[in-house]
């Protein structure tokens, strides 16, 4: 079965990051596929590279990156939700003349159409809420 997974809370604003990541690993371990992980609402903060996790706590942007590298699954951040919260790729940093690229490695800023595309091509859509 093919899944689309959506993450809607920020690292310190809810459990969506850790629960979603654990679920994504469990989905793959059970032999299913994931079309894309989509970060929406406050979930875009999972991709903020300038966050520094306290010692002894999981560094979620890094944990997602490891997951992406190990599995090849796309980590897609809604561009509209991302840039208004300060999550900027190099392109968006140039476009809006800001002074920091804050999109963590391994993530991509994409249009909302990519969420719909993933849902349409999946059997299940699972959302980890705010």
């Amino acid at each position, binding site marked *: 079965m093919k899944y*689309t997974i*959506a993450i809607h809370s920020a690292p310190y604003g809810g459990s969506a990051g850790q629960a979603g990541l654990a679920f994504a690993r469990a989905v793959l371990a059970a032999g299913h596929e994931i079309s894309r992980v989509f970060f*929406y*609402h406050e979930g875009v903060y999972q991709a903020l590279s300038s966050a520094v996790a306290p010692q002894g706590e999981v560094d979620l942007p890094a944990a997602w990156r490891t997951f992406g590298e190990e599995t090849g699954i796309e980590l897609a951040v809604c561009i*509209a*939700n991302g840039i208004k919260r300060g999550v900027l790729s190099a392109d968006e940093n140039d476009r809006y003349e800001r002074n920091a690229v804050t999109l963590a490695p391994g993530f991509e800023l994409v*249009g*909302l*159409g990519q*969420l*719909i*595309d993933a*849902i*349409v091509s999946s059997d299940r*859509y699972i*959302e980890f*809420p*705010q």
Partner: protein
Amino acid sequence: MKKLLCMISHAPYRDAHTLELLDVALVGAVFDCEVSVLFRDEGVWALLKDQDATSLGQRTVSKVLEALETYDVNAVYVCAASLASRGLDQDDLALSVKTIDHAAQALLIAEQEAVLGAQT
């Protein structure tokens, strides 16, 4: 054609939840999905008429709702119990929506292929 339901349950000016979910509804419609929207709990306030969010420095949610019809999203529902418990009725609302009870909401949810905003 995929059937998508967006459930809006946060008060409209509490956070970005309402406008960001309406964006999903509109983009879903552009991508040829059959989109429904259900307002429930505090989300029903989004439907109130005579809204003006100018002083909040935000977009007026009821104005954005008018775009739903433009994008052929005509399946717009509101939870009857959520309206009644807030002392609201159809006359208080900015647009014509279908008021449905919990049993009808269960049927609506059951016929979807994806539900967004299901948990608050």
